């Protein structure tokens, strides 16, 4: 928490400093080789998510035709399709490009939602203390007692699969860790001298919490947001792989589900490897960035 004090002393200017702090964090991350590579890969994924549908040669469910006019089923990578086709004659490359958008959509929305939720809950719980804290923490215990994947499978099978529902479920899964970590952070922050000073100066409780304490937990929130994007993408892939994803969109997990069920592991590696590699590469690149960012937040890790 290197930036804790300067921000706190500047008080109300914390909101203005956010962009410069993000820029500072990025500069530090890039200094680590893993962080730079991770950031580069992530940027690629974001670009593909944005323009993927524009550069994709086909739609995700379109049928590719062979030069003779027949349906191009399970064609290996080559001139007909760059990454080959599925058993339905869809283009693997196009599905991959569209899938990137789905993955990032789920990951980003769920991560932002869960971090906002988790940070608010952690802030209130840690700062209020007493009965409020006790109640919120027991509620968190209950949330931790629910095995996510089985829970999500049941909800989806009863309520019907859709992308918004998947995002909602992932959000409900991710906020728990964030709120515990933020609460622990608030517990130490609220005993710091700058909080006493603010109180002595007559600041209201909500002002102390949101203007003085909150900016100091934001770096941690950002870390959990990044981890949340990773978790969200993985969980969406897991649900889709099990056949509980939105049937109207094609995600990486959905591709793996269809190729798995069609027995492509045996016969059509080009249908299995690309979505799996994309998923793994995305997860690893987030991991590399968060690891560099963690070292920024926790200098002790650096000397270790």
């Amino acid at each position, binding site marked *: 928490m290197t930036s804790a004090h300067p921000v706190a002393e500047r008080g109300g200017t914390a909101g203005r400093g956010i962009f410069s702090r993000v820029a500072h964090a990025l500069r530090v991350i890039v200094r680590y080789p893993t962080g730079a590579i991770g950031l580069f890969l992530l940027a690629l994924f974001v670009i593909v998510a944005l323009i993927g549908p524009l550069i994709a040669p086909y739609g995700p469910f379109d049928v590719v035709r062979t030069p003779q006019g027949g349906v191009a089923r399970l064609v290996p990578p080559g001139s007909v399709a760059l990454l080959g086709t599925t058993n339905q004659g869809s283009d693997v490359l196009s599905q991959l490009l569209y899938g990137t958008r789905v993955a990032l959509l789920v990951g980003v929305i769920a991560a932002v939602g869960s971090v906002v939720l988790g940070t608010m809950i952690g802030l209130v719980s840690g700062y209020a203390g007493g009965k409020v804290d006790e109640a919120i923490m027991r509620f968190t215990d*209950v949330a931790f007692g629910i095995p996510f994947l*089985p829970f999500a499978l049941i909800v989806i099978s009863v309520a019907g699969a859709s992308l918004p529902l998947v995002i909602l479920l992932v959000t409900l899964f991710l906020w728990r860790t964030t709120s515990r970590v933020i609460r622990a952070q608030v517990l130490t922050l609220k005993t710091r001298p700058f909080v006493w000073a603010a109180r002595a100066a007559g600041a209201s409780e909500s002002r102390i919490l949101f203007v003085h304490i909150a900016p100091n937990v934001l770096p941690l929130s950002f870390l959990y947001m990044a981890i949340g994007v990773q978790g969200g993408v993985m969980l969406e892939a897991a649900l889709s*792989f*099990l056949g509980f994803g939105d049937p109207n969109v094609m995600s990486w997990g959905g591709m793996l589900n269809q190729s798995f069920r069609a027995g492509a592991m045996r016969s059509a590696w080009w249908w*299995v490897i690309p979505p*799996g590699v994309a998923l*793994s590469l995305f997860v690893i690149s987030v991991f590399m960035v968060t690891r560099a960012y963690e070292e920024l937040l926790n200098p002790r890790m650096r000397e270790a």
Partner: protein
Amino acid sequence: MNGLRWYLLRRLVLLLFVTAAVLTILFVMFKLLPGNPLSVFIDSNFSEEMIRRQKQLWGLDAPLWLQYVRYMWNMLTFSFGTSFFQMTPVRDIVIEKLLHTAAMIVPAVVLSVVLGALLGSWLGWRRGSRQEGAVVVGLLALRSVPSFFVGIIVLMVFSYNLGWFPPGGMVSIGGQGDSFLETILSLDFLHHLILPCLVLMTREITSPALLLRSTMLEVKGSDFLDILRAKGLPERRIVMHATRNALLPLVTDVAVMMGFLFQGQVLLEIIFAWPGVGRELVAALNDLDYPVAQACFFVMALIILLFNFVADVLYAFIDPRVALS
């Protein structure tokens, strides 16, 4: 000792509270969500009278609070009713599947912990070296690759291409022993176990290794090692002494890991066609066999809660300061 007793009591109350809350959520989920379990079972040819009788049979005509009380009682006494489709008691199905899941998880956890601990103590001892840094980053990166994709790759290579291992299942057709014990003691079972076990280990070895690495660092600085060194013991023996002292925190880690794996292995059970509780849950949901799905969910949640409870208790015994704070 008083503080410890008070702590254990608090943990026990919390366990009961969370279990009840999870059960209540499960109840509400099945009651409130759109989609009616009854509609699965009831054919459109059923007459009003037949539907009424079926509802009565399942107690669905009772007021909601009574349904809730009956449901809680049934769940807590493990009376899960009868499967819609298999027409056998759900309890029998769930117990069988749980044993299958355990047969995959327990060996993987034991191996991960033993090998992870060895690796971790080596890492802690070699702290700061280039190999240490590379291994730690490698472990973390390996853990972040989705294990179901690792499973798919492993199957493609070792089963479909090289033909060294069977492409899934727990035993070959006809290889089922007369008892569960006989089944899991067969070579055929071992042959089926190796791949899923290895895939689980790629994930699970990380946390014992990292944990032991950091505890090892603490232990490494302690005085008794200097005494051993002064006695002239070889470095290898000193590492063994240090490891033994660093092992304690691992115990709680194992408990948490076991609990988590009972829900986390769903994907691997699907990929390796392993007839465990996670695969049963997915199958039950696809068949809309709600009594089985409900029971599978409940036992998975319960196992996680129990293992977490065990972890808390063990931790209090290992480090009494926890109970006092």
